[in-house]
């Protein structure tokens, strides 16, 4: 006998966790199916930025959705603190994208200008800081730093605490968190969905696929497409130093507890979570050009994790035409988008309809034949 729920959310990372939390808040009887400790977990490897700056070039609605999510982040942090006592350490002082050459700076400003001038883009102001203006906000920058762009909407969070808080809040609201339930097969039976997971079956009126890279396999039998691939990202964690960085940057941030993280590498190596030392070296070298004072800081940890990347880099939000009640969500910004997933997307799923404004995020946009 399958255990019955209103909704089965398949995938217990930040995306599934945020949606399941949102569904539980709305009183839906929800199961959150997760794998065990050994899994590809972007949610445990990510950098922790709540990042708006630069996102949405080529898909204006994604820029708007990201802004909406960043504006919902404080409410999410507040709710989670209230329900679980876990402080996710959200800070949104605005973020900096630092440039190390005039060419980099010119290209950055041109890109951001094109971004915010797109039709339909909810335009936000960004600042262009020359070296002197930047040095006033970021003391200790190296001589090779040319300047930066600043966006007031950017911030950061402790992503591990965010994941834990989402799970804890979900359970507190009556949700059922089911680890060691890797979904093998999902089918429609007697007007509902049956998920074969772990050693048993879970029945649900609706199913939401949030399985990251697993969505590519789980989606098609339900008429849902997610052509996602792994993209490796690496993080270097330095020892705690007295707080000196007041703003998160795209490549370096300092946590509220003083830890300095260096991130933002991107490379294509398939399902390979091992660390490339040459990439670490490049990251470290660039970080030292920005902050030479980190030269004698001890490296505590390094790791690699796999981003869930779509062909055009934008998220996919799909509802199945052939299997009504089945949804698919995939993105590589589970931290940034968590607020929108919990408070905006979950109600749409309860309504059974993503809505016309989510149409631009359908995988249909990717359904273009390759030219020979």
């Amino acid at each position, binding site marked *: 006998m399958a255990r019955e729920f209103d909704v089965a959310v398949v995938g217990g990372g930040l995306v599934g966790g945020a949606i399941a939390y949102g569904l539980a808040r709305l009183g839906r009887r929800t199961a959150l199916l997760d794998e065990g400790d050994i899994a590809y977990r972007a949610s445990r490897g990510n950098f922790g930025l709540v990042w708006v700056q630069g996102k949405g070039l080529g898909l204006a609605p994604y820029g708007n959705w990201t802004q909406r999510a960043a504006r919902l982040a404080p409410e999410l942090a507040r709710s989670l603190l209230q329900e679980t006592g876990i402080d996710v350490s959200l800070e949104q002082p605005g973020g900096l994208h630092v440039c190390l050459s005039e060419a980099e700076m010119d290209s950055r400003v041109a890109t951001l200008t094109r971004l915010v001038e797109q039709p339909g883009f909810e335009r936000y102001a960004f600042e262009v800081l020359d070296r002197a203006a930047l040095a006033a906000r970021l*003391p*200790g920058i190296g001589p090779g730093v040319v300047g930066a762009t600043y966006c007031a909407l950017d911030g950061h969070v402790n992503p591990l605490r965010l994941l834990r808080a989402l799970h804890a809040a979900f359970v507190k609201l009556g949700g059922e968190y089911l680890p060691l339930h890797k979904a093998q097969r999902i089918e429609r039976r007697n007007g509902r969905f049956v998920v074969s997971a772990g050693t048993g079956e879970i029945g649900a009126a609706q199913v939401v696929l949030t399985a990251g890279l697993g969505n590519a396999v789980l989606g098609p039998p339900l008429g849902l497409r997610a052509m996602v691939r792994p993209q490796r990202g690496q993080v270097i964690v330095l*020892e*705690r*130093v*007295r*707080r*000196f960085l007041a703003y998160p940057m795209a490549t370096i941030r300092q946590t509220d*507890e*003083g830890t*300095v993280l260096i991130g933002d590498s991107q490379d294509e190596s398939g399902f390979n979570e091992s660390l490339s030392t040459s990439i670490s070296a490049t990251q470290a070298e660039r970080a030292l050009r920005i*902050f*030479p*004072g*980190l*030269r*004698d*800081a*001890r490296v505590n940890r390094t790791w690699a994790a796999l981003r869930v990347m779509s062909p055009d880099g934008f998220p996919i939000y799909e509802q199945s035409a052939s299997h009504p009640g089945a949804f698919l969500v995939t993105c590589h910004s589970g931290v940034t988008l968590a607020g929108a997933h919990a408070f905006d997307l979950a109600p749409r799923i309860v309504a059974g309809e993503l809505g016309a404004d989510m149409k631009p995020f359908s995988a249909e946009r990717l359904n273009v034949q390759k030219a020979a």
Partner: protein
Amino acid sequence: MFRRLPDGQATVPVTIDGRPFTARAGDSVAATLFAAGVSACRTTPVSGAARGPFCMMGVCFDCLVTIDGRPNQQGCLVAVADGMRIERQSGARIAADTPLGQS
């Protein structure tokens, strides 16, 4: 708390927080701190709790001290040397060249 075994050895002069102390040659910095009656050598960066040498074998990282100006050194893994400056640490270390790090 700790008393030395009566095995006479050569001594080396060091300073602990600026005060002269006569250490035994071959001792680790952590053992020297114990011999000098120092049981807490740092406070933690997040909660400010006191910490002192614990495992004495390089595993627990509780014995972090500043040695000759270099912060966050594992006292149990460094042997004392003539004239060594050992300093207790308060909270997180400071990164060089930052406003906090400019001396």
